[in-house]
């Protein structure tokens, strides 16, 4: 088959052959270039509505007129950054235990009852832990929102937090830890955080999980699940008045403890921690074939989210074009300097060559001039991602912004993106990915270390104990 046929000429020929008048009538233009690009749409800021109950509970509603279902999410402050020193994993265990038992009207609900109640709404209950928040998410039909809020209230106001549940969840957490250490993909973010932030970064170990007592869980729960520190988020076809009514019905009686919160103290506020000096580490793992390569560089504290995202997006485009592997990139902000991370999975045989090219290309790509076209491309992609998330999971988008303390930016995302100029973007990019500021981490099977060390001088073998602590 000759695939190089000019389609316009072909179309006319086919129309003659078939005698059809319909075919050529619509083909007035050539096919050698796309139609003119229409001007980019500029969506207005997201119109959220907010209220507060007398007990301090904040209510946020993102109206989605016509939405078939409503997302309901209760957000507390007990993220994994709050893990106390020596008891890393407490935040995760405390959150998981909420779904293990609670009371409703004086009757105990077991984990199976809670699971059933969530499933009956159509989407299983989700427990999500971020660095700064612990979240319980549900989704319901409009006339089932009261059931959803009621369940959230039971789990956070009347959890059993029983000893047996702690043992069960601890055992599962230890297994999850074993799996994480054997899987380069699962281990990568934790090992990378440790490399970037050093011991300031809390990381679970089996020893820290073993140290957890029921009193720790009770104290942690009391400290971080409080109405004045929680947000009840709705995204769906409901008014603020309706949302407020639901909150009052089920959470209006959630009392603010009179005494100041007491409980375990976080190991260290990462917002005050400075990134570690750049290192290059290779942690061999016997499992799987191939390895995970991660490079990361610091981004100054206070860099606006829109600027960070534009830099990430543009760099991602550049590296994917120059080093054609399926790269992933992210910018993680935990309060202090952000970590800008690029990751890829490579077969062992490809590691030395890609390392050498990466070492050469990273500073060059970052230093390339940012043209107006570059800026427009990055803005379009960043806005497109925002619109995609908004369509797919609007509550998750807002929750993520709330957790990062960047709600205003998320609401006015298109406007914030447009406010970034090319010189400012260039300044950020050019100051990143410099040789002395780039961390390298290899996890998995990268072959014998010598070729990789030749490609990236200074690459040192390390151990799980050195990275994770045991």
């Amino acid at each position, binding site marked *: *088959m000759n*695939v190089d*046929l000019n*389609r316009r000429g*072909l179309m006319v020929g*086919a129309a003659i052959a078939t005698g059809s008048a*319909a*075919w050529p009538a*619509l*083909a007035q233009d050539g*096919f050698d*270039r*796309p*139609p003119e*690009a229409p001007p*980019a*749409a500029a969506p207005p800021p997201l119109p959220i509505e907010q209220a507060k109950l007398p007990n301090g509970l904040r209510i946020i509603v993102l109206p989605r007129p*016509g*939405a078939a279902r409503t997302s309901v999410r209760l957000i507390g402050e007990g993220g994994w950054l709050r893990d106390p020193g020596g008891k890393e994993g407490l935040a995760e265990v405390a959150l998981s235990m909420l779904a293990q038992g609670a009371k409703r009207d004086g009757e105990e609900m077991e*984990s*199976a009852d809670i*699971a*059933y109640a*969530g*499933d*009956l709404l*159509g*989407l*299983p209950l989700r427990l999500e832990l971020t660095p700064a928040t612990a979240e319980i998410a549900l*989704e319901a039909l409009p006339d089932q929102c009261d059931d959803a809020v009621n369940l959230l209230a039971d789990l956070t106001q009347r959890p059993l937090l029983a000893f047996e549940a702690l043992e*069960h969840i601890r*055992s*599962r957490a230890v*297994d999850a830890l*074993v*799996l994480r*250490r*054997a*899987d380069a*993909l699962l281990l990568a973010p934790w090992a990378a955080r440790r490399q970037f932030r050093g011991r300031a970064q809390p990381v679970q170990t089996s020893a820290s999980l073993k140290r957890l007592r029921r009193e720790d869980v009770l104290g942690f729960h009391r400290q971080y699940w409080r109405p004045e520190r929680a947000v009840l988020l709705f995204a769906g076809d409901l008014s603020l008045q309706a949302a407020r009514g639901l909150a009052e019905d089920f959470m209006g009686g959630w009392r603010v403890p009179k005494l100041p919160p007491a409980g375990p103290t976080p190991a260290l506020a990462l917002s005050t921690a400075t990134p570690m000096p750049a290192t290059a580490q290779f942690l061999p793992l016997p*499992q*799987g*074939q*191939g*390895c995970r390569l991660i490079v990361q560089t610091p981004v100054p504290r206070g860099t606006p989210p829109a600027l960070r995202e534009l830099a990430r997006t543009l760099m991602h*485009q550049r590296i994917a074009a120059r080093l*054609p592997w*399926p790269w992933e990139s992210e910018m993680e902000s935990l309060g202090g300097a952000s970590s800008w991370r690029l990751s890829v999975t*490579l*077969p062992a045989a490809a590691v030395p060559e890609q390392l050498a090219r990466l070492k050469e290309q990273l500073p060059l790509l970052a230093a390339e001039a940012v043209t107006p076209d570059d800026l*427009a491309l990055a803005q*379009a*992609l960043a*806005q*497109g*991602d925002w*619109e*995609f998330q908004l*369509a797919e999971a609007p509550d998750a988008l807002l929750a993520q912004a709330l957790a990062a303390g960047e709600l205003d930016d998320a609401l006015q995302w298109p406007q914030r993106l447009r406010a970034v100029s090319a010189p400012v973007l260039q300044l950020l990019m050019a100051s990143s990915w410099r040789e002395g500021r780039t961390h390298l981490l290899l996890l*998995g099977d990268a072959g014998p270390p010598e070729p990789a060390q030749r490609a990236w001088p200074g690459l040192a073998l390390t151990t799980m104990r050195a990275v994770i602590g045991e």
Partner: protein
Amino acid sequence: MSAPTSAPSFEPQRLPNGLLWLARPVAGAQAAVRIVYRCGGRDDPTGRSGLSHLTLRLVAGASRYLEPGQFNRLIAAAGGRSGLEIDEDFAALQTVVPANQLERVLWAEAERMSNPRLEPDTLDTARRQLRQAVQAPQLNPYARLDLAVQRHGYLTHPYQRGALGDPEQLKDLDIETMRAFHAARFGCDRALLVVTGAFDEAELARWVMHYFGSIRPPMPPAAAAESAEPRESRRPQSQTLKLSLAQAPLPAAALVWQIPRADDPAMPTWQLAHALLGLGRSGRLTDTLVDEKALAHQLSLRLDAHRDAGLLVAQALAAHGQTAAPVAQALQQEVLRLADEPVSDEELDKAKALLRRQTLSNDWTADRLARSLGTACALRGDAGAPARDMAAWLKLSGADVQQFWRRQVVQAPVLTLLADIGAAAGVAA
């Protein structure tokens, strides 16, 4: 053929060149375009596993008027995202953009379909991409178990090769073989165009006719290249295979039953049984084996329905201190128990609620709906199949499911895969 300006309907319409297309509106600011070729891993010639995957990457890569990388830049500049998907039964390209960019995407997709650049240099690039795609899952310490499920779950059907392919079987492939395969399998008469999102129906119909109606239909000999429909054999008896995952952290087990083809009339019953056992946090398997008995750390139950045959796969990672065999035994007991332990009305309602939400959620975004319609057409030959499934679930009772389970699963042979860690002996699967 419908008039070019007629409004698109739920059922696919056929253009004179054989291309099928259908469009469904979705509220919002986005539009999705999905091109589905009815060619997947099942159609790979013997000894050329991955040829469909490779061809899809070539079609996606470059064309007469789109230089390598230009399609991605065009979509990126529009604020969109695009990807490709290779399946055992189909190969698909999907793009999501702001709705006002739809016409440009239609142009680009028609260009990729019409004039793909099948040259030695683009073939090399596609080979490299395929190798990368095959490599990525191997990082998972349980990759060998997943592979064994596919390879031994099917007995004779090409599904046992999977869809990604084997780079070794493609390294000496010449460009003429590739062109011949493309001509036979990736013509517009084997493709389905799905458009979803925010669009004007009449305008869309004009664009589709303009950009896709002009693509040349394949030459008649292409149709003669069709080979015999592959068939799957019935498993004669239950079988146990052991594989050694010497370096994996926890033992694992998988149980595999054969299920009928995706368009089988009993598929809604399979789906409901699957929901009762494996969907949600309160599915019977998780409830019993993870929460109550603490035998398993993680469980999954998959209903892999395909065009010609399928598998029901129950897979477990054992909890610390357990070995694969007792976990497999408990998993099997729990699956079979569905036939004996009555299904309460509440349990049935909950399973139906989960299924219903899962199906309805496909209509919520342009991206999901395009995927769902394309897959329903490719696997079941019917874009309306999910809606019909929903109607069927409503009529099914717990007793119906149990009776069905006794007939289809309890009496059926099962393949058991035991993956112990350390020095487990046995047949290397």
